[in-house]
């Protein structure tokens, strides 16, 4: 089905999120939408999907003007959407999530769960997914949740499909599979809008590219354009896509983890006797498919996991069994994986968030009193230093874009005397400009002699940052390999295959 958006304008108060945007997606075309964080991509798609009502403009499907009062109408017209922020109900099973809104029922509204299960397995089979229809969504790794979102959209036989950053949480293999599916769908005549920040993907799959900046279309690009060209178009300035990184000068072993095991409340092993060492002045990247124990490993290091055995020492003193506060005070900096959930209090101001994990000691607090003028000056400095774009230090963090939120977390964690820095998925969902900035800061931290652990599912990121790479699979260490290990090898390791000799030597 052919989709046409004409002159869409959407305002949030005084902010014009979409400014007379025109976009045409032909039937059987994958159309990529590029733009910085906050450029207005999601907003445009939400207008298309009936979630927002545009102030101006119209939506045409096969040249017929549509009037959507809500997502129901959009879906009925054949539009499906895989949302950037998952629209899944955590306490429902996969089948329930998929059937919600178009339930098949028997007598008296009785849910026909078997039918829903069949549907899930059928679509899973068609696209090669491995999804258990009876699993609770909240128990699933994010990558699988993403598939559920896709199944949800596909189960409605949508003929226009919007993918809003579907790959942010997928592994390279998963991403490749997804792109295969998109091609498959395209070939069967579905029009696809594909939003991503990863230029590699755009060039691999898109038929046409539209770039949006500050709410307006800045132009079209061809899939053959270089990364630099695309990035420049998006950001409006030249972006250095490869971060300069000098070779590491590792010092003494700083963090020594031996035989670390983490259990979940049911006694299930999440991290299985993991041992490794991080030296001062090096970056150890922990790679792996989402859900293979990396999260739990970092949480165990931070004292956030209750059932832990094994030993963790930092500069010779043990960290295991200490409270989070003690570990933070010992000089561990931590960027959690989910910044809105674990890293920030969105209803706090930037300034308040900057003192979040130091609310118990000078210089932020003296004799129970928060030192407001100190905090203001500190925040002002950090906002400048980390280039947090906001209306001032009293802006609520929840109103910042994702990239700027992440900068606040980084600013907070990197402004302490650190003896260890742990960053989990530090650039998830960020645009190229922000990624560049975050990577620079992480390397600068290493160069200052701090041991750094970066947890990432993103091979590009791992390649850009790692001095050594630890690959995890099913809670175990598959191997620790040098930072320049080829993608292909890493990909295999992430699937559980032990590395070849040359890799294991590192």
């Amino acid at each position, binding site marked *: 089905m052919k989709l046409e958006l004409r002159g869409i304008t959407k305002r949030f108060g005084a902010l014009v999120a979409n400014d007379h945007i025109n976009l045409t997606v032909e039937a059987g075309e994958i159309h990529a939408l590029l733009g910085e964080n906050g450029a207005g991509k999601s907003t445009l798609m939400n207008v298309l999907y009936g979630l927002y009502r545009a102030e101006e403009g119209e939506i045409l499907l096969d040249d017929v003007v549509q009037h959507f009062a809500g997502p129901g109408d959009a879906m009925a017209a054949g539009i499906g959407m895989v949302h950037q922020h998952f629209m*899944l109900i955590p306490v429902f099973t996969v089948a329930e999530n998929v059937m919600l809104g178009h339930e098949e029922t028997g007598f008296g509204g009785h849910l026909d769960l078997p039918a829903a299960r069949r549907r899930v397995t059928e679509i899973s089979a068609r696209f090669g997914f491995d999804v258990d229809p009876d699993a609770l969504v909240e128990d699933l790794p994010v990558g699988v949740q993403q598939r559920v979102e896709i199944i949800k959209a596909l189960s409605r036989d949508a003929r226009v499909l919007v993918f809003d950053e579907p790959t942010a949480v997928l592994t390279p293999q998963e991403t490749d599979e997804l792109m295969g599916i998109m091609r498959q769908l395209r070939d069967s005549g579905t029009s696809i809008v594909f939003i991503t920040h990863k230029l590699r993907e755009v060039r691999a799959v898109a038929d046409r590219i539209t770039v949006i900046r500050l709410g307006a279309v800045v132009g079209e690009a061809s899939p053959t354009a270089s990364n630099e060209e695309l990035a420049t178009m998006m950001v409006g300035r030249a972006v250095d896509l490869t971060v300069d990184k000098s070779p590491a000068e590792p010092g003494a072993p700083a963090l020594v983890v031996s035989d670390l095991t983490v259990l979940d409340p049911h006694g299930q092993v999440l991290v299985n006797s993991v041992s490794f060492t991080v030296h001062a002045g090096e970056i150890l990247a922990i790679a792996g498919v989402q859900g293979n124990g990396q999260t739990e490993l970092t949480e165990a290091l931070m004292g956030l996991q209750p059932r832990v055995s094994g030993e963790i020492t930092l500069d010779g003193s043990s960290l295991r069994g200490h409270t989070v506060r003690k570990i933070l005070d010992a000089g561990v900096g931590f960027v959690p994986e989910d910044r809105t959930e674990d890293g920030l209090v969105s209803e706090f101001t930037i300034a308040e968030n900057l003192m979040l994990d130091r609310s118990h000691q000078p210089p932020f607090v003296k004799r129970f009193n928060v030192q407001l003028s100190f905090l203001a000056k500190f925040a002002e400095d950090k906002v400048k230093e980390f280039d947090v774009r906001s209306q001032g230090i009293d802006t609520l963090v929840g109103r910042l874009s994702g990239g700027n939120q992440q900068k606040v977390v980084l600013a907070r964690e990197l402004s302490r005397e650190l003896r260890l820095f742990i960053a989990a998925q530090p650039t998830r969902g960020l645009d190229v400009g922000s990624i560049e900035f975050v990577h620079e800061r992480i390397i600068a931290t290493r160069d200052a002699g701090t041991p750094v652990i970066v947890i990432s599912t993103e091979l590009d990121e791992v390649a850009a940052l790692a001095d050594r790479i630890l690959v995890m699979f099913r809670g175990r260490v598959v191997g620790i390999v040098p930072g320049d290990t080829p993608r292909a090898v890493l990909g295999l390791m992430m699937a559980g295959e032990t590395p070849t000799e040359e890799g294991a030597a590192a």
Partner: protein
Amino acid sequence: MKSWKTPIALAIFTLLGFLLLVVFGRDGESTMRLSTTTDLIQLPDVVLPTRPTGIVVVALLLLITAGSGWLVRSKAKVPLWLVTVFAVLLLVGFLAWASADHTIPVPGLLFGSLSLAVPLIFGALGGVISERVGVVNVAIEGQLLAGAFTSAMVASITQQPLLGLVAAMVAGVLVSFVLAAFAIKYFVDQVIVGVVLNVLVSGVTGFLFSQLLAPNAATLNSPPRFENINIPLLSEIPIIGPVFFRQTLIVYIMYVAVACVYFGLFHTKWGLRLRAVGEHPQAADTVGINVARTRFWNVSLAGAIAGLGGAYFTLGSVGAFGKEMTAGAGFIALAAVIFGRWDPIRATLAALLFGFASNLQNVLSIIGSPVPSEFMLMLPYLVTIFAVAGLVGQSRGPAASGKPYIKS
């Protein structure tokens, strides 16, 4: 890894049991009457020698405690049924102790427990539905009271208890309308509306009671009550029959309501959508579910059910409206909702537990208890605290409950 919580709790209770049943054991005989005079099948009274019973019970408790300790040591979970057996044993021991040289009519004890629990169950069902769809319902008390008042008045005027029942539902719905309108349309804090509604309903019913019902009691406050209906066969099952199947229509409606709400919530389209709206309204919105409408009508439904609970006071139980006659039942129902983890069956069990503790207290104080009345009256509340702290622990409610859904 290992959680010693259960064995420790069991050990503490065993110790308490030992102190009460053995150290402070009483001599004499405890009689438990299992049948009512009207039963077809007459079971003989169970007569237990008080002190030996206590000793045996404590021995068994000790055994279970040891067993649970062993289980935990060998990294197994203590099964729920074992805890249940423990609780039942402790209860039997306690009953025997308390009724030394007295008779406890078991069916009567249970019957009364159910009667005290009925309004709580209706209220809790209303609470479960309302909170599951994302609207916190602190106004259960108000819905109960409105239902009680309206049903009494309408049934008195029409002399039709069934019409009274309908009126009670309408009254509950009206209270819900206010809650829903303010909470859903005008985004007023749901707890404010709930708390205020309780005051409002108390004021309105109190006022109308003084002005209308009290002076014209014969015409406006003498509703015909529902008759008890004995279900053939079922009502003759020993113990169970007299307790559950010689009840009024309202109680039978309650059984159906519990079953329907349970089935509906977890096995129908209605329930799926309702829960979706309460968990993640935006996700529900994206699949075409009208969040506001779903909330509005289900909150109204919740009001109707709670209204039925109100009608139980007047049409099922006591046959006339009295000021503030719900006496805090709505708040206990609210506690039952949370205690029951927002699950209709569990909430019902929680309400029954409360009813049982209340009526046990009644019976014990009647057969003469050495404990001052005030401490006896505390019993149900203490039992609830112990149960919540010891057994239930952390509970998680519907994620979006209490949060207004504001659309662009």
